[in-house]
């Protein structure tokens, strides 16, 4: 599962990226996690399978979803992002019907 984290500069989602990578490993799921600024989204549209937005740019969700087509686009819940709760985020991804 290739997960793409999107925020303004790719910095704060960088922390979430490390935690999600651990979470993938813990669950034995093959995949990668990338954290990029919103302005570089276009370069990753093809390769990513799941699009996660930081809550600070939640307003861009519809735009990202339109580009992502039928792939999952989700805003990370503020409390999960604040607590860097990768387990909950991964549960949400799987709960949204993404096959692993």
């Amino acid at each position: 599962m290739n997960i793409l984290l999107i925020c303004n500069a790719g910095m704060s989602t960088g922390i979430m990226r490390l935690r999600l990578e651990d979470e993938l490993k813990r669950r034995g799921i093959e995949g990668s996690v990338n954290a990029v600024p919103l302005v570089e989204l276009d370069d990753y549209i093809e390769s990513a399978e799941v699009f996660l937005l930081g809550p600070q740019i939640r307003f861009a969700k519809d735009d990202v979803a339109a580009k992502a087509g039928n792939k999952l686009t989700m805003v990370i819940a503020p409390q999960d992002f604040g607590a860097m709760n990768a387990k909950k985020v991964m549960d949400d991804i799987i709960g949204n019907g993404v096959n692993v």
Partner: protein
Amino acid sequence: MDKLNHLIERKVAPAANKLSRQKYLQVIQNVFLAMVPLFTIGSFSLVITSPPMDYTTMEPGILCSIMKGWQALADFTGPVLNLLFAVTMPFMALYVAMGIGFFLAKHYKMNTFVPVIITTASFVISTGLDKEGNLSFVNFDATGLFAAILVSIVTFETYRFLSEKKIGRINLEGGGVPPALADSIGNLIPIMIVLLGISIVSNIMIALTGGAFPAFMAMLMSPLVLAVDNIWGVIILSVVVMLFWWFGIHDSVITSALDPFFYNNLGINAAAFAAGTAAVALPRIVTTPFWWNFMAIGGSGATLGLAFLAASSKSKQIRTIGRISVIPAIFNINEPLIFGLPLMYNPIMMIPFIIVMPLNGVLTYLAMSSGLVARTFAYASWNMFAPIAALIDTMDVKALLLILVLIVIDILIYLPFFKVYEKQKLKEESM
């Protein structure tokens, strides 16, 4: 509260989205983001070659020896580092012109190098020739920044229009000509129209105003620049930015529009400092490092101290978030606090969250305008630990002390509100 929430999510957030999707704003943000390493390199070159004190006028002692050593280092590295500095900040407008061509072309998925040539050549043309008829680098620095932005956008769009409408297109496709060649030769006439046009306009400008276009543009923009480089500008802008963050919305909509102003001021200060002006007497105060290193200590909202308060809280919930927040806070990243504590939509924390950063701005502005603390001429980057960053930005130990004082003041303002919030959380946890 629900009503307010509704208003923000339905009205403010979509407006922010619309603005942040604004392609020119996005492109400008991209350009300055890409240029950060260049500013860092220029800053360090300038700092290393400029010992803050003149050892020849000092009493013998440790400090004198350090300055003597520093001067020796400056003399030794000068030839290399001065050259490095010369192509960083003093060339910022030229790079902005290139960057706008590149990122706009990317935005429109034009896979060709031509737009970069168009915007770069047009900007250089707009700076005119000097009296001897040679190209002049004078406006490649901060003074040409606004001209670079305007000229690049206008010439790019003109070129794109001509090219898309196939005006004057020379059709070479099919005849075994490589596609890249077909594209550049095919667009020969649009390229010529744009460059001829800008050259004619540039010459008319010089004939009418006696100076090149960048000087005219800088004059046009000066009221706005002065409004930003002003204590009221600092207060209003930072309050608006913090309101955005209180709603949990990123400030890039505002701060990316401010980038040209902040970098313009930084470039003007760096040039003045390199030319020998004392750091306390530099022309501008509100610069990129002023905002990101002196005001946003620990992230927008100046939450560095708050992260430490949270990490040692009696409430388990607050402490958990605090411990996640401390290390990012040192590097001025505070999303864990904003969304985890949370500060977003938190009525108890609203007052300190919104007023602390403007207050840092006011105090820094007063300290710098009165000459108590040196002004910024270098930029250590936004994710450098604030006290160290302030020292690099100004080469003034008093700037470091100022940051420490600001951190204490910030904590004192956050503390009473934090206590109320902590009490509320403790009560919830004991239930």
